[in-house]
């Protein structure tokens, strides 16, 4: 896992954990810094490394700025930018 490094060009994103996944991480949300040109897949690696939560996964929703990870043309290779919000939560199933 690449360690997030702090530098003056770092990208800072917010990762939010909902429902039972918050129980697993012990936190509601965290701000994480990544180097320039980091991509969404590095968030997945970080979450897996820190908490053992595998994303993407059928039992985990992985959402970037309100859209599913696979709805971006570059999918996990989607470049991150400052202020991005990533949501991680169990599959919603309503009605």
């Amino acid at each position: 896992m690449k360690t997030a490094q702090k530098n003056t060009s770092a990208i800072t994103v917010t990762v939010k954990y909902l429902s039972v996944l918050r129980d697993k991480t012990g936190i509601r949300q965290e701000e994480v810094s990544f180097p320039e040109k980091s991509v969404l897949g590095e968030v997945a690696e970080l979450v897996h490394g820190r908490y053992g939560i595998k994303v993407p996964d059928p039992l985990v929703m992985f959402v970037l700025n309100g859209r599913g990870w696979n709805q971006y043309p570059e999918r996990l290779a989607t470049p991150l930018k400052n202020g991005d919000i990533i949501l991680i939560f169990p599959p919603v199933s309503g009605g």
Partner: protein
Amino acid sequence: MSLEKNKRRQCPDTKRSDNFAKEESMKAFKGAYMGKVLRVDLSSKKHSVENLNEEEVKLLLGGRGLAAKKYYDEISPGVDPLGPGNKVFFMTGPLTGVRLPSTTKFQLSTKSPETGMYLCSNCGGEFGPQLKRSGFDGLIIEGAASDWTYLTIKDGEVVFGDASSWKGLDSNAALQKLRVAIGEKRAGVMSIGPAAERLVRISYINVDTRAFGRGGPGAVLGSKKLKGIAVKGTNVIPVADEDRVLGIWKEAVKDLRTSRANHTKYGTAQYIEAINEFGCLPTNNFQTTYFENAHLVDAHTMKEKYYIKNYHCFNCPVGCGMVCEVKDGPFKGARARTEYETIGMLGPDCGVDDFGAVVAGNELCDSLGIDTISGGNAVALIMELYERGLITKEDTDGIEAKFGSGTAMVELLGLIGERRGIGDLIAEGMKGVLEKKPEWSPFILAVKGMPFAAYDPRGFYGNALTYGTSSRGACHNVGGWTIRAELQSGEYDRFALKGKGLLVKTIQDNRAYVDSLGICTVVRGSMSFSDNPQGDVLEAVTGYDFTPKLLEIGSRVYTLERLILNREGILRENDILPERILKEAVPSGPIKGQVLTEDMYNEMLDEYYGERGWDSNGVVLDETVNQVRLNEILT
């Protein structure tokens, strides 16, 4: 099918028979069905038994499908929802009561007092399984009693009881009276509360503390002076292959322990935070879609401060019901089982961030017997009218009806349930309100008279189509819950228009067959009842090869419901969303600026009609009737 041809179809009088039905009428099936429907006439205090029709069962499965067919055959367009000509059709599904997870559900169809048109509704509890064990797949209530009445049905024996001393009882107290009346602690029981006695058009039927919630079916029973029904049966529900059914039960329970662990822990309240993060949580009567204090009414707050225990429906290993109690503060002692919709509509949609107030509002709705979704919408409307100066304290019986006040929210529910002040008008439902006050149209969030659920459709465009095309008005269940698919699909995202017509149709058909089965939607994945159904559950239970035909059945049921709606005058103009959604951009939050214009909506609607085989006015085409084989069973 042309509207004229549809209207010429007859609603023949039902053949009555005092003889018990012949059991050979369902030879195709080796289990699941009892083969009989009980018909009770409250006017004459007589009852009769009729057979299920094997061909109809093959094509419509049970539950919602058969309840729709009964409605089609017996309720003509001119029937007054609150008149003696309306009927209530309760139908179980083939899986109701079988030893599989959450086989608790049964369906209702009737003409809705809230919308003035066809209503289908789905409910859990003990009643459905007990009805089947008492020997009946369905129960029909018709006519109207001259005095307040209750019914008991015990292994086929029907007794009409005097409920005159029960008038005014809250619905939970009435359930207890019914258990005593039938002499069984574990009977299936359903009742109405005082709101339904007052014909409040958003009143519900309490079924073992679950509910036929939407559309005002409580008022239908109220108009018939039927306070409640108790049922108990000792018959075994037959299944075709007992060993296989037991094997499926074990596999499904194991699956649910993992796949639904989040529901067991947090119930549906877990969606408050997610939906808010997506910017779709209705706030202040859908004026905006992001609630700053959502964390005060979310699942974690619920669990830490209010949770008492889980509630399990019949045969359900998940137990997603979260019984909550308020331990201190102004609502101390209030107790209710709060679901996402209730929290959303009594909480953020009324601007309320006090979970205790939500529990208290929920408890009052249960006590009066009113639907929390329509109730929350109604309170939010009153609050907006009040804050805009369009109504005053004189109208609200002195209540300062401001957004954010939990006390006001609870008191306004009382106003509606008791028909006091402006509550008397609001109790007529949004359709009734619009007829008297068309100038309030910009503040009403409803389709066909049914208020929105707790999702703002400007955040998920498929959900917009769901509300517009649901068979019973703006319902996220019947209309198809699209949110997960709109987040997971690799073909489009939640703001795409193209593809949503097919998506909504598929989800609706999936839901229609699930509602015809007799199981809860939360567990359907554990038995492969998806939009690509697999497995052998139905074959093991019924002995009939239903599984490959399930989506067709769903499409057939949905088409039948649209035929009913067309006959009742429902066309494209009724499938359109309210002004606030199509004219106002979201003013704040994660989807600030998002718009869904009428042109955008119509683009999705056209695609949907094409997928359904309806014309551009939303009328079912003749060839579609034949294509889905409804021509084989419609007279």
